[in-house]
């Protein structure tokens, strides 16, 4: 097995990306886009888009407005001589996982997608001509991921309209002289830490690419097992609470392998993909977040969820304050799960404060997304599932929309994308000067850059970080539950988690873009042979070697990495009982003896026949017909014009040889 971390990713929006070579198959884990890199581009200038203005005027009515999304509390600190003019004025490109381009996409056998965020880069590889890998995605991730990609494409169109079509294949800003002029903060985003990531930038794929990509995707249900080529067993399970219930029972699955990945404080994931390969060699990849799981977790896990709940309540109370003082609240939709919770909670807060403030959800896919969340009880946490069993809607937004408390706008352009694309940009421009208004923002490393175009801002900014993976202190208990044989752990977290020596697993640390060779844990594979097949076997005893051998033929069935040989009803009677494989060196005298018993007579001629061959002796047959047998140590040649004679001689030769 070989493991390469192509990208460590960066938080919720940019899940890590790994390549694993197992049992001869190349498996890619996730194919994300680094959307945070979008911040180096300038949003569409304020006066440019009249459509946008018309639309946003809908929300600029004087009543306060709450808009949707997620986010912290520290006030924006101003920095650097970086200003809005440093941003790149151009149609945005998108930053893919640079290291992935170093691999030949046509050699990938399997792609496993762990979350909607993990599939945003997928159309880039599915459109490659020779790409033929099987892509596994969970049902829910596929649907949400598709909606996100469609949304991205439609938001991008807005920019496109403004900037027009790109002048050349390489945009101006990517030229080295332009890059040199960029402020260092932006340059770091554009080129990466080592300055080598420029190659990862790509223009956005089209709606057709997304459609084509979705056609190639194999959807998995909750905990469904898929089998690739009979050997790799792939099982998708959500974590949250489920992870215990699925793995706990200590059944046949033992995990060899467990890769964890994350950023400094928060690590891991709620969505794990379990991978089984040949011979019970199984691997778990705890890769990334799935909204549902995120949600499940934040709702179900006591300590963590109460913390998360507090954050939500804090956001809500800030929002209420803002609205009370006549301001508006803008919440860019980052995470579906968090957004849904905020929708529920803010409406509850509004209700209890007796405020009649409309909530708008603006997105080209909002309607479908909200409807979809109400029909997937299988992917939600236990508490939400209880709602199904008691006949309530899974999420409150269903009723809120019915009561006209939440308004869904199918805007042509939609939610936020790092404050660069979509309607959030327009709304932010409009409200940034209002000290009563509030922007709720996910805590991003590059929040400074993100807010650059909107400065100076008198609008309040609430930054909030939500759990986007496993907490470090949860790693050990998780591993204890999973009982893997091998754990891969990011090198930069080496000092954060200390593994005791008494662990049943071995730990390897990995660096980005460095291939790790992992010892294969499999022993020799085991084959199960049906008893009815076993009973039909014709054993051959090789006495002097104390061996019994028999030819075995059946239908091989590989199921979940287990091999079974079943009897094949049709073939049993065929004439294949004759040996195929021979060894030994026949003595010409023995051969003559056998032949004469069969009524075939001849004589032996010894000696070298031609120079290049090893010593051969020739048996000349005269009776009943002319034939010649050329006997060497490694082979025998039978030459006879008479077909019948030839086959009888063959039998005689077989008789003096050993064979099976």
């Amino acid at each position, binding site marked *: 097995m070989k493991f390469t971390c192509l990208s460590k990713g960066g938080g919720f929006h940019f899940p890590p990306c790994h390549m694993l070579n197992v049992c001869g198959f190349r498996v890619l884990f996730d194919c994300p886009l680094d959307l945070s890199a979008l911040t180096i581009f300038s949003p569409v200038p304020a006066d440019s888009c009249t459509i946008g203005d018309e639309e946003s005027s809908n929300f600029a009515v004087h009543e306060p407005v709450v808009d949707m999304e997620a986010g912290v509390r520290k006030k924006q600190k101003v920095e650097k001589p970086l200003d809005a003019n440093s941003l790149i004025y151009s149609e945005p490109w998108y930053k893919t996982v640079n290291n992935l381009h170093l691999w030949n996409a046509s050699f990938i056998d399997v792609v496993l997608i762990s979350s909607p965020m993990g599939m945003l880069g997928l159309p880039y590889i599915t459109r490659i001509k020779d790409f033929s890998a099987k892509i596994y995605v969970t049902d829910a991730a596929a649907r949400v991921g598709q909606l996100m990609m469609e949304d991205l494409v439609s938001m991008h169109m807005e920019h496109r309209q403004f900037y027009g079509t790109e002048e050349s294949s390489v945009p101006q800003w990517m030229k080295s002289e332009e890059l040199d002029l960029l402020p260092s903060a932006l340059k770091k985003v554009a080129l990466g830490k080592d300055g080598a990531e420029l190659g990862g930038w790509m223009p956005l794929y089209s709606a057709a690419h997304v459609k084509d990509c979705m056609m190639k995707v194999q959807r998995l249900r909750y905990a469904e097992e898929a089998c690739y080529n009979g050997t790799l067993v792939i099982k998708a399970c959500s974590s949250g609470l489920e992870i215990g219930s699925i793995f706990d029972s200590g059944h046949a699955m033992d995990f060899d392998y467990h890769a964890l990945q994350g950023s400094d404080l928060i690590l891991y994931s709620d969505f794990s993909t379990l991978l089984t390969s040949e011979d019970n060699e199984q691997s778990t990849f705890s890769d990334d977040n799935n909204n549902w799981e995120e949600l499940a977790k934040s709702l179900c896990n006591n300590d963590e969820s109460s913390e998360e709940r507090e954050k939500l309540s804090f956001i809500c109370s800030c929002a209420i304050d803002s609205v009370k003082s006549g301001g508006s609240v803008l919440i860019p939709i980052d995470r579906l799960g968090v957004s849904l919770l905020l929708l529920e909670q803010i409406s509850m807060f509004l209700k209890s404060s007796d405020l009649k403030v409309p909530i708008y959800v603006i997105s080209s896919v909002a309607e479908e997304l909200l409807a979809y969340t109400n029909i997937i*009880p299988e992917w939600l946490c236990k508490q939400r599932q209880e709602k199904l069993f008691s006949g309530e809607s899974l999420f409150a937004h269903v009723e809120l929309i019915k009561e006209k408390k939440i308004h869904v706008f199918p805007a042509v352009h939609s939610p936020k994308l790092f404050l660069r694309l979509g309607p959030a940009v327009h709304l932010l421009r409009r409200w940034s000067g209002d000290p009563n208004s509030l922007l709720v923002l996910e805590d991003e490393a590059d929040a400074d850059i993100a807010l650059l175009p909107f400065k100076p801002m008198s609008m309040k900014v609430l930054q909030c970080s939500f759990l986007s993976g496993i907490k470090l202190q949860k790693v050990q208990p998780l591993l204890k539950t999973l009982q893997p044989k091998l754990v891969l752990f990011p090198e930069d977290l080496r000092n954060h988690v200390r593994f005791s020596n008494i662990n049943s697993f071995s730990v390897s640390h990995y660096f980005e873009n460095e291939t790790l060779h992992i010892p294969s844990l499999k022993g020799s594979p085991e084959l199960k042979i049906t008893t009815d097949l076993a009973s039909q076997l014709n054993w051959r005893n090789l006495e002097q070697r104390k061996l019994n051998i*028999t030819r075995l033929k059946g239908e091989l069935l590989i199921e979940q990495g287990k091999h079974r040989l079943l009897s094949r009803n049709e073939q049993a009677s065929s004439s294949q009982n004759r040996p195929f494989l021979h060894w030994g060196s026949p003595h010409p005298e023995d051969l003559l003896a056998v032949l004469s018993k069969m009524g075939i007579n001849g004589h032996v001629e010894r000696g070298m026949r031609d120079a290049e061959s090893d010593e051969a002796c020739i048996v000349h047959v005269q009776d009943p017909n002319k034939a010649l047998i050329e006997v060497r140590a490694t082979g025998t040649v039978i030459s006879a014009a008479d077909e019948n004679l030839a086959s009888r001689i063959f039998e005689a030769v077989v008789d003096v040889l050993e064979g099976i």
Partner: protein
Amino acid sequence: MAIECLVLGAGQEIGKSCVVVTINGKRIMFDCGMHMGYQDRRRYPDFSLISKTRDFDNALDCIIITHFHLDHVGALPYFTEVCGYRGPIYMTYPTKALAPLMLEDYRKVMVDQRGEEEQFTSAHIAECMKKVIAVDLKQSVQVDKDLQIRAYYAGHVLGAAMFYAKVGDSAMVYTGDYNMTPDRHLGAAQIDRLQLDLLITESTYAGTIRDSKYAREREFLKAVHKCVAGGGKVLIPTFALGRAQELCILLDDYWERMKLKVPIYFSAGLTIQANMYYKMLISWTSQKVKETYATHNAFDFKNVRNFDRSLIDAPSPCVLFATPGMISGGFSLEVFKRWAPDEMNLVTLPGYCVAGTIGHKLMSGKPTKIDLDKDTQIDVRCQIHQLSFSPHTDAKGIMDLVKFLSPKHVILVHGEKPKMATLKQRIQSELGIQCYDPANKDSVCVPSTHFVKAGASNAFIRSCLNPNFKFSKSSLEDKSDSGSQGMKSMPWLQISDDRVGEGILVLEKNKKTKVVHQDELLHMLGEQKHEIQFAYCCPVHIEKLEQTETTDLIPTNDKLSASDKSSVIKKLLVKLSSELSEANIHDFGEHIQLESFHVSICLKDNCPYRITDSLQSKSEAAFFCCSWSEADEKLARRIISIMENCNLT
């Protein structure tokens, strides 16, 4: 070991489905239903047969419920709350959501309206459902270390599933009720090709082959329309869930198209609430219905409203859905009593009614009077329309499924005795699969597949992984004749999994039995392979071959230039290609290859393989040296005879 199958219910009958299967030491109860036709203790399966001491927790490893129909889940609260079973219970999400509605509805009919002593309370139902573990389709659930179960889509009603169970090397499927053709709101059953020792299948329509469903739906709509157009009332007795939604989609759609304004009522708030469940569970419906979720959820019925008791005697026409389905009591009976005497009205009946119910009486003949009890007699003058579409598979569907799964044994349950016997015969004679149709309380024992273990070398496994082309052909046949739509798309994945394994099993004293590739065997033995080949130097007539030269018959080296050689070979190639059109002939310039048969021009003056006695007579001949291995002996002789008898010009 064997698989033991104890039939507690639905043995040669329909009702109280319950089969207890012991498979490699694990004991699973499939379904826990009640019988609508009985009011006494016969309504429940005889649970005492599972454990004399009534220690059900130790006697059973789990219960699996296939769907929410009462004949499959009706006895569950009784078994868990009254009999005290506390082990795990599995069902799909929709079944877990909807079964309590069915149970509560039934409990009400039983207690409130029939005045019976209650077998279980509402609290019992709630407690019972708390013990249920909901599963998704295809989710592999590990019940314990050894027992794995998995649900597959069964059509029939929302959330209905077939269940696969596997313990060690033994595996089986219990179908529950299923439908092999899609209906208004559900898709057709879908299952993977599995390696099964046993298939337990329903056989409700064991003797029926059904024609198009749409004609029968039209008949139903026409009957309803005619009745309301004539000012009559339509009573549609159904259970709260399943058929009610299917018919409702049908009617709602028809009402829209025909712009009808006649109200459609649901008798209890219950069914309207059920639609709420259906909306959330829309991903379990058919593809067509599923796609509607974002715009207009198909279970948001536009023309349906709640019924008020006072409307029973209102003069205006209407359509009313009322429970229970077979008019065995409750509200549907109450309405039936009032509406049956009027010939303007219409009562529809489900395709199947249990003996003892009013529905059953109405189905048998055309009674004008029905005795409800000693004192009550109902005049029946209304129209009766029996629904002839059913959410069950027909005989063809059963045969298709059995053929598709090709289990080692089949057990038929959930059917009528004579028809089951016929189907059993067909399965045995047409498919060659052992089939049983046990009665209640019977036990059937079938052997399970056993395996012996052997180590396998990697080379052996690798050699088996080569695709087997023969197989892909047979899978195409499977595809074309498995008639049901649900299965057509399935065998593809399986193709790569089924391969011919060929190797050598080696049994050495004091060592583990091992399977190796044949090349490895020689290595193990320290021996070299001894190749046995056939050879023959074959004379071929060549007309225009340098006749002016010597009379020498052997075309020697200097007589045949390289270009001559290749042209002669080319000629032979043309000849062979025309004679052996189906063969795969490879042209290598200097020689021709056909399987292991190898032929090239012989340049030796005195080739040892020039055996033939008759060669002296062939004056104008070229010699071709041929060699081949034993496997192609037949082919080789055929080629040689072509060569000897031909004339290359």
